[in-house]
């Protein structure tokens, strides 16, 4: 029953959306809009689920003084502290905004900016002309890298145009093929879930 009930619910929900959305007569009844409102409420509940889950996992870490339990404590203080603060002040309250703009934004930006350093050293180690394919990849990336920055056109006029052509023609063609394949694959998986053939999302093997 632990698998059958969720599977039946999945199939019913899928059929509901298809009938409500694609049958014009049913669409007029407004079921689809009602279904969307329900989903929005259920989706919001996921956040609560996340908070409960984090509290249980990290609460146990703190309670049992597991290794690095201090980080778990910091996480819980931040999560509940900021949550209570924004509930009291709204997200644009003075203290909430200060914490957001001076701690959250710089921390997140710093982590993302670290990519620049790793990409530089990765490019140094990875782009080697070992094979013909690797050589094409290396040349293309250099053309694009220099062409998307103003320096390309400054060194050789027209470099930017070449970079644009690479993006517009070979890239678009290849990407279109990949995307069509991915969407067809997604559609096939959706059908398999709807027919109850795909059960991996219920846990265990499909």
């Amino acid at each position: 029953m632990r698998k059958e009930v969720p599977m039946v619910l999945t199939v019913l929900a899928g059929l509901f959306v298809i009938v409500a959305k694609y049958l014009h007569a049913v669409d007029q009844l407004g079921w689809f809009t009602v279904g969307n409102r329900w989903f929005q409420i259920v989706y919001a509940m996921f956040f609560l689920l996340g908070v409960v889950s984090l509290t249980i996992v990290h609460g146990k870490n703190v309670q049992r003084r597991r290794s690095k339990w201090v980080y778990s404590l910091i996480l819980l203080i931040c999560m509940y502290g900021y949550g209570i603060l924004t509930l009291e002040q709204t997200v644009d309250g003075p203290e909430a905004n200060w914490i957001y703009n001076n701690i959250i934004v710089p921390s997140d930006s710093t982590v993302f900016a670290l990519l620049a350093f790793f990409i530089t050293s990765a490019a140094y180690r990875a782009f080697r002309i070992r094979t013909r394919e690797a050589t094409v990849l290396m040349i293309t990336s250099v053309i694009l890298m220099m062409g998307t920055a103003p320096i390309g056109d400054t060194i050789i006029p027209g470099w930017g145009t070449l970079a644009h052509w690479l993006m517009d023609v070979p890239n678009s063609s290849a990407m279109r093929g990949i995307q069509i394949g991915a969407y067809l694959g997604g559609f096939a998986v959706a059908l398999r879930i709807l027919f109850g053939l795909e059960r991996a999302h219920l846990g265990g093997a499909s």
Partner: protein
Amino acid sequence: MQWALDIDRRWIWAIIFIIIGIVIIHPLGLPITISPDTQQFYDTVQALPDGSRVLVGASFDVGAQGEILPMIRAFAYQAFAKNLKLYIFDAGWTNGPKLATQVVDQVAKEMGKQYGVDYVNLGYKPGSSTTYTLMTQDLMAATKGVDQNGKSLSDMPIMQGVQKVDKDTFALVFGMDIGTPGATDAWLPLISQPTGIPLVVGTITMSVPTNKPFLAAGQYKAMLDGSRGAAEYEALVGHPGPAIAQQDGASLAAMYVTLLIILANIAWVTTRKKPA
């Protein structure tokens, strides 16, 4: 040349840190040419009738703000100059609407525009794809009738006559794309295509390859390609800003990485053992 292969990567990091630091302090001012994509974006916005409504899809997070916020800033200058009404919203990225509104607030202050009259932050509302769809059916239901800070939307002049996102009400959607959900899986299939509202997109450099086919197919009316696109757009609207300032750093970083690749390959070719 073995030294080049064995070089400590911290030296590589230190040099790029110094290079970018120098150009931030002393900009080179390299000329920026306008690409057809950016010109098309500018022309599409410019062609909108004065006072039109534009839905700004703030699908981005803090990590992408370096590339996306300059686009929104420049867009706000162009939009407010045409008295366009901006509705900032997202259902997938919790930080996007807040970050976008902070930038729009600054431009609005400069141009004498008012919150609730000329622009509104409909906020982040949970539900992802379902909420985007709900926007086209019942905007008040999708937003729960309140803005980001819980203020009633029905009291705001900007919301008068706005029941849902449709072609009669909105003239344009400006959607961002940095991942999922974004322009390819939310603003295009759930908002633009069902309603027929034209879509223009702003994307980070990393997502340009994914988005290009949609632009080529005409499903996007126009697109800003990463920080370079943002810099070109800033130049077009006549308000140079952070994106233009980034371009010198991007130029020198690109040149540095290119030189590193050349050095690494020379070292590799000269030191590799020939097969017996």
